[in-house]
């Protein structure tokens, strides 16, 4: 995504050699990931003077496309499942050439020596009649529950102990929604909301591959496996919340197509976007009232003033690096420090000279999941939680070039895979050899399903969570900036006193995945933060 550098701002060279920008913005957004773009656009549309600063050469963050080999492009996020419809409509993204994926990707549970499981547009193939029947009941329940939660992903979570009317209304609304689905479903919701994925799946199905495939969306991106208690089911419901019902698709132009539309919408709304402008420090003004955010300092020393700073970067980076602990209360600092931010998903990119063939699969046009059993996921996780990389990784594979030919030279293809579980902190530290080893074992795993793949590889790239952290400036290389778990969600996300997008520092706001509702490409945190700022 190219970048619009501001030419309009007036700069004066100061005696000390630092640049001082005499322009003052209403809001500066730190970080040009999709949430930063969404927030910037809402604010600019409201008439604010908005500057978005992105550290890297292009906006988009984990959704941005990169040429990982000449002619081959990929973004870390390779599909979209629950991007907010309201954001799409509010920001008129379609008029900025956003083409939501027309057809949901079939979800494929790859099997060996068995029929693949294919879930496509409401139909399930490749499983027993019993499981197919159970699947109907399972889907009905999950959809009902997802509907209960749906309104809350775009709401600011209430403050505990608050007697504010809006806060009480949100609590009341949730209660009413639960009540409205009927007593049985309400009790069922309370029962399953924090179940381990394994228990839920065991309750409904016999087929191990089906169980593993269905629980995938409750687990990916998190430090959780099927047996982990906590919020696998909630994560699944979160991903099912939008009109797409959790089905993944690839927008026109790939995920980057959405990013392009968002940047165009931001610029059209009047926001200024500057890339290659890494922020070193959030500047704070001191007064008798305490500290107040009033600008940023870039790594090259340039100072830009603004009435408020909105950080789309992760909470640890925002507070510990950009604000600095000396400017925060000790208890709050330590809650931010204790956020669990270690990513466990690595990214494999393969440049292929032709379309790979998956044994027994007519078309490799879906989201292919390699997790033959629940235990395959569990065992891969067991290794990673002790700092080792999984011997038999589990993964989700997409061939984006099947859907968008521009991502690879004619006739050639890109394979994009999320590989789990790969620890951010490998025992003994990450080395090229360690990365090579897990990359090779990932390719070996794929080769079991697509035997010819090794011969098709022109180039391979493997990004560990540590690589993601370095390249994308996201703490722990965590997709969601901080773990999506009971203690770090809703009015606890990222932690109390920063869970309503405002922070203990007046003038400083959060708008990224570390804020409610959380990660993935949703635009919801950016939307909610803008609403709070404009309130």
């Amino acid at each position, binding site marked *: 995504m190219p970048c619009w550098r501001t030419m309009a701002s007036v700069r004066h060279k100061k005696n000390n050699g630092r640049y001082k920008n005499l322009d003052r913005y209403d809001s500066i957004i730190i970080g040009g990931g999709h949430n930063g773009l969404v927030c910037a656009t809402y604010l600019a549309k409201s008439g604010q003077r908005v500057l978005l600063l992105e550290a890297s050469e292009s906006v988009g963050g984990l959704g941005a496309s990169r040429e990982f080999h000449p002619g081959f492009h990929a973004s870390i996020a390779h599909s979209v499942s629950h991007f907010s419809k309201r954001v799409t409509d509010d920001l008129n993204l379609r008029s900025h050439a956003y083409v939501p994926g027309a057809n949901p990707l079939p979800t494929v549970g790859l099997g060996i020596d068995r029929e693949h499981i294919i879930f496509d547009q409401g139909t399930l193939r490749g499983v027993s009649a019993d499981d197919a029947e159970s699947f109907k009941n399972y889907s009905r329940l999950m959809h009902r529950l997802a509907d209960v939660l749906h309104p809350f992903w775009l709401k600011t979570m209430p403050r505990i102990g608050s007697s504010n009317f809006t806060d009480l209304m949100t609590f009341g609304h949730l209660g009413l929604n639960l009540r409205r689905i009927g007593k049985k479903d309400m009790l069922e919701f309370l029962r399953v909301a924090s179940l381990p994925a394994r228990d839920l799946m065991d309750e409904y199905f016999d087929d191990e591959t089906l169980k593993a495939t269905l629980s995938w969306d409750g687990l990916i991106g998190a430090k959780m496996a099927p047996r982990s208690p906590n919020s696998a089911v909630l994560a699944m419901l979160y991903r099912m919340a939008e009109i797409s019902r959790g089905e993944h698709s690839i927008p026109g132009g790939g995920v980057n197509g959405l990013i392009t539309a968002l940047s165009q919408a931001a610029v059209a709304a009047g926001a200024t976007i500057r890339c290659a402008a890494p922020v070193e420090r959030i500047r*704070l003004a*001191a*007064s*008798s*009232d*305490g*500290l107040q955010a009033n600008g940023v300092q870039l790594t090259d020393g340039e100072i830009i003033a603004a009435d408020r700073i909105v950080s789309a970067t992760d909470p640890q980076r925002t507070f*510990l690096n950009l604000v*600095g*602990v*000396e*400017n*925060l*209360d*000790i*208890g*709050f*600092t*330590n809650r931010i*420090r204790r956020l669990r931010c270690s990513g466990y998903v690595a990214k494999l990119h393969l440049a292929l000279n032709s379309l790979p063939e998956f044994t027994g699969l007519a078309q490799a046009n879906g989201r292919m999941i390699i997790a033959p059993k629940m235990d395959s996921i569990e065992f891969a996780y067991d290794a990673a939680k002790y700092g080792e990389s999984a011997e038999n990784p589990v993964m989700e594979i997409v061939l984006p070039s099947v859907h968008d030919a521009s991502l690879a030279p004619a006739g050639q293809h890109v394979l994009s895979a999320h590989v789990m579980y790969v620890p951010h902190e490998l025992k003994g530290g990450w080395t090229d050899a360690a990365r090579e080893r897990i990359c090779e074992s990932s390719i070996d795993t794929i080769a079991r399903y697509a035997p010819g793949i090794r011969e098709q590889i022109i180039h391979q790239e493997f990004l560990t969570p540590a690589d993601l952290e370095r390249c994308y400036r996201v703490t722990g290389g965590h997709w969601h900036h901080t773990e999506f778990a009971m203690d770090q969600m809703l009015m606890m996300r990222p932690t109390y*006193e920063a869970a309503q997008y405002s922070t*203990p520092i007046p003038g400083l706001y959060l708008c990224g995945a570390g804020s409610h509702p959380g990660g993935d490409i949703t635009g919801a945190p950016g939307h909610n933060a803008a609403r709070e700022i404009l309130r």
Partner: protein
Amino acid sequence: MTTTDPYAGERLKLSPFYPRQEVLNIREAWSAWNGYKFAEYYYDAEYEYFCVRNQCATYDITPMQKYEIRGRDAEVMLNRMVTRDVTKIGIDKVAYCVWCTDEGRMIDDGTIFKLADDRFMLTCGSPCTAWLAKSAFGFDDVTITDVTDDLAALSLQGPTSCAVLKNMGLHGIDTAKPFNIMHFPFHGESLMVSRTGFTGDLGYELWIPPELGLKLWDELYAAGEDYGIQPYGEAATNMARLEAAFIMPAMEFNEALRTVNFEHDQTPFELSLGWLVDFDKPHFSGRSALLKEKQRGPKYTLTKLDIEGNRPAEGSYIYGNKQCTKEIGYVTSAMWSPAVKANIALAMIMTDQLDNKMWAEIYYEKELRQYSRIAACTRKKKPFWAPSRARATPPPDC
């Protein structure tokens, strides 16, 4: 025959001064403080109190928690932790400080000794390691070391204390102003002397490597023989500090990190320590909560009371009417003050009732029979005991 002590590790630690204290503690009145065997009193609490007020006496403060905080970021780390402005403390100066939770509730009070630009000592009544570690997180160059066992400390308090130190050969000690620190060579090591204390009177605290503890004791007692030097324990300390209106943990305040019930801890404003909260500092931990507290006014205010009669109002409720139907506060510490010749108390009084008349309902026992009386209270603005010698430099008779 030797047997292994099954309780080794559980037994109280002995202060470096213990061999002398053991001989002097003829009542065997021992208690414990931070794991150290510690004298409640040696001979008689009141006698020891009179020594503090009329001569001089020593109090073993080795068990006080002592932390060395070193490094380039030591000052900024401490400055963010405590409510006072640490940057205003000069080298070889001491400052009394408090530190609070994010909610502005007091964790503890203590003193900060600035020994160099990058070296401080923090002392406090209770272990503070966990909070210090939390406070230091995020700073690049701070090292915190618990030096409690590596530094013996003896408090010498009373009107003749300066003369004793001078007699011991600490030349120039009379030039030390309150909260000043001086260093003297002592048998190849350095003896640090701070003009500080917990009695409200003239006094000093002496800091020495533990292996020189007994030498210090002996030289001090030799020099002080003609000046009436005596040891004093916790009981006399508590009397002296109450006359000076100094607060005591578990009496005037409940440490916030050990408080379970909501707001059963205190803010500095409630403890009349608002003067320690420096809002000229742009930030310190708890600042925004404390600013709100200041603007709203504390719910309670620690108040000095002179109560009629001579029965200590220990544990009394304070009422806004003589019928004792309108409760407005409670006494935290009370005693008959021999020096002031008054029945004194510290009490937490509802701030909006401070200007009202107050009565204490005092219960007391006389030969196994319980009595009660209702006594009028007068609010005092100044400490009960604050002799000018405590602030004079050089001190009189020195």
